């Protein structure tokens, strides 16, 4: 069969820079997210070293504020979000029996804008000072009046660019999951991870625009002397708090829901048992996503919103405990009566359950507004959100990485090193953050550069620092594991854990470019498991073998984000005293910003005008793949 379009394929670096393949984009997300995770972790260790003893001066006060701001911002936006997208990209299309995401080109834009934004944000370290007003960037501390360096400019512009990536990524997964499921894969047969990816994407769709609006407004304040949040000019600082948390609270659920999905998959697989109460799990996920938008003001109980708002938001927040509790018990009862195998992936998943419960219950405690007047902005809150984000999301991510590593890379991670990693990380984690609950209750505010001697904070802070070091050590073991594993042959089977239940385990590890040679026919929940139980080893195909249409790689996404990166720098440095030379004229007249935007717009123009119909992978190539693998 002859198809008109030329086959476009690159290799090496060019392949990675132009790829629109969801699996490769997933790996790109993982690499860059992993890199930023190490950067954020290093910042955390510096914070803990500074706090290991009272009145320490290991780092200067303003550096400490930069560290805590960049630690939070990096971990949330540049480490956690991309690692979630890494798993979603690598797995969701495989779980629903799709050959790619709905918009492969947009997928690449999503990655490259996130990467450009992340790099831009970190450039601030080398350009006269990182942002230093906390990851929440509360006005007026974040306004030009009180923050005269370019640090906050990097924050508002870097996050806007990275935010574009997250938003289009979310839209892409919504479209993918709605439109591209294999025949028979109804919504109520979707694997739990796909469900959580779906709800998370919906939350991204509604939450990120709020952040973007806030950031644009703050950028106008800083770059063009507007006054949305400048109280001296009639702006309103509390408005920023609202906008930030209307985004910020759903963001917490954007982060944690995919981890819930991973845990559901891993626990079910390694218990050899169907997920207990699947439909109530789905319902609970949807409910958490919905309630997530109703509770933002519980971050603002001390702002002075008044008793009516505080009471309403207290109750709304407490309600979230109900669907979350449903999930916890469903996981426990999935294991109940099962045959539990403790692989590293499952250790992380099993460790997640009690740890997340501890973070959840402190969340309910924080929901009681009058008690929150005491907890708020103290180390108790620091302990709480690290229990849900590290003890929840990060344990979930590591579980997912160990579980799906063979599907992503074709190699199984070393289990012994994996278990050493788990115990170091798990024990280190509890050591670091458990004591922080008590520090907060004993009167230690958060975001403090140092603390006075004799206040009773010394021992607990020392324990916390030792715990952080232990976590760091664990992470090093994980890195060693990755290096050791990548030297091993690529020999993972289709279903390396032998108890795989979902569609991704029916295809080779790693999956071929087109994922499924023939789209599978899904006959029930846990589609692969159902076939296995009927004595079959593979899925029933829903179509005959034929040529597969593939999207062409493109360098446009990369150049679009480079354009935004340049434009961002141009906007930041438009103001300032550069003398009277040509360079000053260029900066003052926004020429750099216009040049950057022009690159992006030109790329968009090229994409719109020149159609690229992609290419086809012919049947004989697919058969050849099968022959080699089988």
């Amino acid at each position, binding site marked *: 069969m002859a198809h008109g379009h030329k086959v476009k394929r690159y290799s090496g670096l060019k392949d990675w820079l132009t790829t629109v393949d969801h699996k490769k984009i997933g790996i790109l997300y993982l690499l860059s997210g992993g890199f930023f995770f190490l950067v954020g972790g290093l910042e955390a260790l510096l914070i803990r070293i500074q706090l290991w003893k009272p009145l320490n001066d290991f780092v200067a*006060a303003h550096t400490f*504020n930069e560290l805590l701001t960049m630690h939070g911002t990096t971990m949330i936006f540049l480490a956690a979000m991309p690692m979630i997208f890494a798993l979603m990209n690598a797995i969701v299309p495989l779980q629903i029996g799709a050959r790619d995401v709905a918009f492969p080109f947009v997928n690449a834009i999503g990655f490259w804008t996130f990467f450009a934004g992340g790099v831009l944000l970190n450039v601030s370290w080398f350009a006269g000072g990182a942002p230093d007003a906390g990851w929440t960037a*509360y006005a*007026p*501390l974040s306004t030009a009046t*009180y923050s005269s360096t370019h640090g906050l400019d990097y924050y508002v512009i870097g996050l806007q660019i990275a935010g574009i990536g997250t938003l289009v990524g979310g839209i892409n997964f919504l479209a993918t999951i709605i439109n591209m499921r294999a025949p028979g894969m109804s919504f109520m047969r979707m694997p739990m991870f796909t469900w959580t990816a779906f709800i998370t994407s919906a939350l991204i769709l509604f939450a990120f625009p709020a952040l973007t609006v806030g950031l644009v407004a703050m950028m106008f304040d800083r770059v063009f002397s507007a006054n949305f949040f400048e109280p001296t000019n009639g702006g309103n*600082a509390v408005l920023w708090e609202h906008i930030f948390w209307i985004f910020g609270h759903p963001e917490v659920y954007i982060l944690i829901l995919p981890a819930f999905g991973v845990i559901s998959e891993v626990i079910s697989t390694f*218990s*050899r048992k*169907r997920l*207990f*109460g*699947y*439909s*109530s799990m789905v319902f609970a996920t949807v409910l958490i996503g919905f309630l997530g938008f109703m509770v933002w003001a519980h971050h603002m109980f*001390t*702002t*002075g919103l*008044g008793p009516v708002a*505080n*009471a309403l938001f207290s*109750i709304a927040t*407490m309600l979230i*405990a*109900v669907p979350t*509790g*449903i999930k916890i*018990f469903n996981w*426990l*009862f999935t294991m*109940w*009566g*099962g*045959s*539990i195998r403790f692989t590293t992936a499952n250790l992380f998943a*099993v460790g997640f359950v*009690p740890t997340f*419960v501890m973070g959840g219950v402190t969340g*309910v*405690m924080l929901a*009681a*507004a*009058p*008690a*929150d007047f*005491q907890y*708020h*902005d103290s180390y108790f809150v620091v302990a709480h959100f690290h229990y849900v984000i590290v003890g929840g999301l990060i344990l979930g991510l590591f579980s997912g990485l160990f579980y799906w590593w063979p599907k992503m890379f074709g190699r199984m991670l070393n289990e012994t090193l994996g278990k050493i990693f788990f115990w170091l990380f798990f024990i280190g984690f509890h050591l670091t953050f*458990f004591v922080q609950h008590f520090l907060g*209750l*004993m*009167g230690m505010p958060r*975001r*403090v*550069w*140092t603390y*006075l*001697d004799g206040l*009773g904070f010394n*021992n607990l802070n020392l324990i916390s620092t030792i715990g952080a070091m232990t976590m760091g050590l664990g992470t090093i073991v994980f890195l060693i594991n990755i290096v050791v594993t990548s030297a091993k042959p690529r020999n993972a089977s289709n279903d390396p854990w032998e108890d795989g239940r979902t569609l991704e385990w029916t295809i080779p590890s790693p999956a071929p470019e087109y994922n499924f040679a023939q789209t599978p026919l899904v006959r029930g929940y846990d589609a692969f498991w159902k076939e296995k139980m009927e004595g079959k080893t593979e899925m029933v195909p829903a179509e005959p073998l034929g040529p597969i249409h593939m999207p062409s790689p493109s360098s446009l996404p990369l150049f679009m984000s480079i354009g935004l990166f340049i434009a961002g720098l141009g906007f930041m440095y438009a103001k300032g005293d550069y003398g009277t030379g040509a360079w000053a004229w260029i900066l003052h007249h926004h020429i750099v910003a216009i040049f950057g935007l022009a690159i992006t717009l030109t790329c968009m123009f090229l994409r719109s005008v020149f159609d690229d119909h992609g290419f086809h992978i012919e049947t004989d190539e697919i058969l050849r793949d099968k022959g080699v693998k089988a």
Partner: protein
Amino acid sequence: MMNRWHVLKRVMPLLVGMVLLLSGCGRADLSTLRPQGPVAEEQFGLMKLTITIMVVVVLIVFAIAVYVIVRYRRRPGDKSIPVQVEGNHKLEIIWTVIPIVLLIILGVPTVKSVFGLAKDYTHDPKAIQVHVTAHQYWWEFEYPNLGVKTAQELIIPNDAVISVEAKTADVLHSFWIPSLAGKTDTNPGGNVNTMYFEAPKTGVYLGKCAELCGPSHSLMDFKVKVVDRASFDRWVAAMKNPVQLPDDQQVADLLNKQCLSCHAIGDKGVQLYPNLTGIGSRQAVAGILVNTDDPKYKNEGSVEDNLKRWIKDPQAVKPGTQMPKVDLTDDQIDAIAKYLAGLKLEY
């Protein structure tokens, strides 16, 4: 594998217990766990209620988790397929309804307390009215009905409700006296927050800024000194007494030129920055250099030494402070510190 779990589950509570024993519940003048007034007590009551409920929940989950992990682990060579249970309506209803009941138990006192603590005493003639203004990195306390303004040290009587109206002069801060009452943010732009508290026991309590406000956020401490009514009245009177400038005319000129252009002492000077009336009898200099004749820690010293240290290099004590390094010789600093240390209020 299982042994490690066992050991961990057994050792963790022991460790935790030890940690708690070692540290107690914190200092009585600082810890939310040792409330010293009715507002902090009410908040602590709610904390105890929630902690109790939550510890029960955690224990139930831990118990089920440990049981399941031990009982249903896979034996080597086990190839059997467990029964594929879809769910169980009865169980699912139980673990939906019980949390709802727990939340009602928690929600009712929460709402009651939210409205109780929002009571407005700002027009109560019997309450002591205090206007708190937060600055980068110091606290201003004004008693509008008494015509007194002070800084860094809030003096209050032990027999009245203290009604606070809080705002900021620059960025967000948060006014927090952990052992007396939870915090309230200080907002800019005429957005005033109110709160109240009582302190029936005389003594000194530590106050903190709880909202990131710049490099010296961690050093923005203040003190609350609770005295009896007679003593409070004497303090108010003493604050209004005229103040003697130093006898040495040179020092007096220096003070007028270098200090009183920003600070006020009694009826002299201007009120732009912390009021220094009676600074010699305060608990601390700059909020964190604790005055004591028996210094134990790096941030402690006699009043005079602390004043010298502060005036000599304010940035070294509080990075980012607006107090400049004033152009003074060591002798001049000594003379000024000596004079300031001698400014004591009898009350």
